[in-house]
């Protein structure tokens, strides 16, 4: 046995060594734990804001109806026209930011707040809105709908 670890001086040494070992081990664990959790990929798939796969399929949206969905951080509107075509646009009215809706009776997009009208290409056609709605590109691949930012 080592003479350095016997006797009163030795017991202090032993204690310090123990303290060092244990706290070092604890510290290593407190580093390894977050790093390990970090490396395990999260359950939520990454949503790149330039492309969004919708949570519902083409069969879930009938002609002449529309649904709101999230495009990145912003609300967006997916419209299936009476002819059957899918269109996607930003749902934030360019006047004062209210959320627009699709009016089947009008056949185009309408903002309830101050009676602003937009056509299905997003162009502001009547009322206060000063600018058109941003349009997105819609693709149907199988039973999924993918919306991407236009060029």
């Amino acid at each position, binding site marked *: 046995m080592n003479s350095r670890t016997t006797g009163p001086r030795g017991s202090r040494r032993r204690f310090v060594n123990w303290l060092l070992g244990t*706290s*070092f081990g*604890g510290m290593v664990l*407190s580093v390894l734990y977050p790093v390990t959790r970090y490396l395990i990929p999260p359950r939520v798939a990454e949503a790149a804001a330039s492309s969004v796969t919708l949570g519902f399929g083409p069969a879930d949206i009938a002609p002449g109806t529309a649904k709101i969905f999230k495009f990145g951080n912003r609300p967006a509107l997916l419209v299936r026209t009476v002819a059957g075509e899918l269109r996607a646009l930003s749902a934030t009215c360019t006047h004062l930011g*209210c959320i627009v809706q699709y009016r089947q009776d009008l056949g185009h997009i309408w903002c*309830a*707040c101050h*009676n602003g009208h937009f056509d299905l290409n997003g162009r502001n056609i009547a009322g*206060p809105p*000063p600018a058109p709605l941003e349009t997105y590109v819609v693709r149907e691949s199988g039973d999924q709908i993918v919306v991407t930012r236009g060029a």
Partner: protein
Amino acid sequence: MRARGTIGGLSRFVLTAGLALAGTVRLDAQGGAAPEVDNCRTCHEVITVERLAGPVKAYPADVHAEKGFSCAACHGGDPAIAGFEAMDPARGFVGVPTGRRLIQVCGRCHADAGFMHRYNPALRVDQVTEYQTSVHGQRLAQFGDTVVATCASCHPAHGIRPASDPKSSVHPLNVAETCGRCHADSTRMAPFGIPTDQRDRYRESVHWRALADRGDQSAPTCNDCHGNHGAAPPGVTWVGNVCGQCHAVMADYFGRSPHSDIFNRMGVPGCATCHSNHAIAAVSDTLLGVGEGTICGRCHDAGIGGGVVAATMRASLDSLRGAFALADSLLARAERAGMEVSQAQVDLGAARNALVQARAAIHTFRADSVGAYVASGLNVADTAVGRGRKALDDLRFRRVGLGISVGLILLLITGLLLKIRQHHAPVLEGES
């Protein structure tokens, strides 16, 4: 001769005859070419009398000058002749046109679609016709009233600019001031017995704030509700139509509500009864209900009929607003502390939307309409509150985690320091 008091009659005959006659006078600015020699300018420029020289100095900024119209186009006379002979009535000189004469002079071109087509095909050519329907036009035609506004009252004669020009007297930002020049002048308005506080009241309104502070050109000013050339106050039964141009949802709800009919029978002007006509203030939920300071409370008593509906609507809006405020503050606190809550904040926007829709639904004056929107909003707000609380819990977890790791590090440091002391760092002696 037909009796006075009808809109048509002699006055209309004179007006139309005058227009017809005027139409035969050839204008000297055909296709925009200014006359070669303009003696009107030459003389009037150097006259020291401000009343006579002022117009010449101001005129180059006028849109008519740009298009090549000279003084004689409106004032008549012959610019080719130098001296007083130019201002000969035989040569068409009309001096300073006012009142009905002025309408003729302006209307000679501006009511002629074929002529206006050459300069701006998109300009309307019905201003004179509209004017004849207005209070101003009617008083001018019927009573020869010279106090009322005519063309040059709003479009200052030698400095007319298109309405889109910010310097124009009829640019949206300037319209209230232009109308106010007469309508806010109590001396001038005294004979007519109408209020003169409209301009000042309008300046307190949300519409003016939107126009002036936010630059929102879609916000209404005098002419958007009263018309430009056909200026007249909206009739009591059609105030709702006017407001409903933009506030379509509210007007629609109101039109189908019990209040619509009742207000008509009472002879009170629809929307303006609660919201006022000129001093339209920003609305808040505190105006709803039957308590102190509420609008409903002015007519409805608490505890019966409409009072109960008002109180119910107010209570449900308050609950949504409260839930929304709670969610918003929780998420804001989490965000300030560095947590990533942007998605939750976006989702909370749906509750804001529901609040807007619920407030619009007040105008149905039925508690269940409001209640439906409030219910959906509360759903969203509750989810957001949950996410806000979770974010704050995560924050606490981080702080606890930090405490533990820092504690371990400090323990390690203590161990090291003890080790250092133990060694009594043998100091080696070197050479000097």
